């Protein structure tokens, strides 16, 4: 457990020293979300129907943007190697990095998304559902994304390859996440969607760390 806290504290301390990274991801999210009306037109009903999908897809892309750097810096300066050799279980270390990634990207996205929702004319209850769905869904992006980042460590064409590997795995999160908001818009109780999202989070909690550890061991072989 101490390993988890040590790595988490270090990650957050480094992030505080390099505020730019987390901020860039957030700004990227807002920019992508505000491009859609320019492309599709300002017609309110259309925007309201699209809001959930746009918010979620922007969140997916923003998370993807920051995933490539999850292990890259540590891989380059040798600290990742030390983590593999440390007595701490590697899963705890990887989980700490995933938590740090979520705290720095997933959480801010979820908190900002209701603003985007307002911009798109979403009613109040739909905004709450959007916030909750993102809070439950974005950890999955970090968990499965970490596995993708570990698999493409030190591989050329990493960014695009990472997207190709990970985005198909995000389909259920997008379906249930955006579906929850759309359901609440048309009066259906979104509890079913959110619980399925939670179930997928549970699965990713198992699959993500295992795959990331295995992939890191392969990458540093």
């Amino acid at each position, binding site marked *: 457990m101490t390993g988890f806290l040590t790595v988490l504290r270090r990650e957050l301390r480094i992030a505080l020293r390099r505020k730019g990274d987390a901020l860039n991801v957030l700004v990227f999210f807002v920019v992508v979300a505000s491009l859609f009306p320019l492309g599709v037109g300002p017609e309110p009903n259309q925007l309201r129907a699209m809001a959930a999908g746009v918010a979620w897809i922007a969140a997916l892309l923003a998370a993807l943007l920051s995933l490539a750097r999850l292990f890259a810096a540590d891989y380059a300066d040798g600290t990742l190697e030390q983590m593999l050799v440390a007595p701490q279980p590697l899963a705890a270390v990887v989980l700490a990095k995933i938590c740090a990634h979520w705290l720095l990207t997933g959480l801010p996205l979820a908190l900002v998304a209701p603003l985007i929702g307002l911009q798109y004319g979403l009613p109040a209850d739909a905004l709450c559902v959007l916030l909750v769905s993102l809070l439950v869904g974005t950890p999955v992006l970090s968990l499965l994304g970490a*596995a993708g980042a570990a698999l493409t460590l030190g591989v050329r064409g990493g960014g695009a390859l990472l997207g190709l590997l990970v985005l*198909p795995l995000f*389909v259920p999160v997008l379906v249930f996440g955006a*579906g929850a908001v759309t359901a609440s818009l048309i009066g259906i109780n979104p509890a079913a969607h959110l619980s399925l999202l939670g179930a997928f989070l549970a699965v990713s909690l198992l699959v993500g760390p295992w795959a990331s550890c*295995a992939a890191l061991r392969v990458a540093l072989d």
Partner: protein
Amino acid sequence: MNSELFRLAAPQAFFPVAGKMLPWFSFLAGALALAGLYVAFFVAPTDATQGEAYRIIFIHVPAAWMSMFIYVMMAGWAGFGLAMNTRLSGMMSSALAPTGAMFTFIALWTGALWGKPTWGTYWAWDARMTSELVLLFLYLGFIALKGAIQDPARADRAGAILALVGVVNVPIIYFSVQWWNTLHQGASVSLTRAPSMAAVMLLGMLLMALAAWMYSIAVALARLRRIILERERDAEWAKLQRSTA
């Protein structure tokens, strides 16, 4: 028997065995395909509602079955290679991947070409077709990852991890897309309600599916032999093999 199996696990030992099996599977594939096509075009009656267009299911449904079946096989071989650390299994998963991707591609195209006459649009975002599209992305991801990593041993192990993560997610993706489809369109349009499964149609599809299976094994064995030669490039026996092949 056990030692025989382990002897075969070495690529060099399996190379000639694959060579001997190849013609058999190719012949089987050809024969079954001919039988299937005969049933599809001459034995199957014209469907009351869709007329002749439904004959496409004799290629579409087997291709869809094979695309999923091969992915599971690929993940199985990859996982086996990861656990037992046998190089041959990793090669087998690489040999299967392109054929699986091809069947997914065929399933998508034949699905679209079948959709046009029956529902008026090439792409109806039908639940199964959308999941098939995601499956194609999973195949392409696997092939791209293995292509991007130079060292064969690392490529096999990384590919195995991706395939295992993928095979866990495939049912979830299929379920979520099914759910998504019912939410937006209602269950009016879906391939699952193909015309009533007359026995002869089922026979036609089974024959074509078996033909596709034999074909996949034959192609996988052929590609496996090429991968073995490529990877054992510096081994003496590989050079000898290439000069005589």
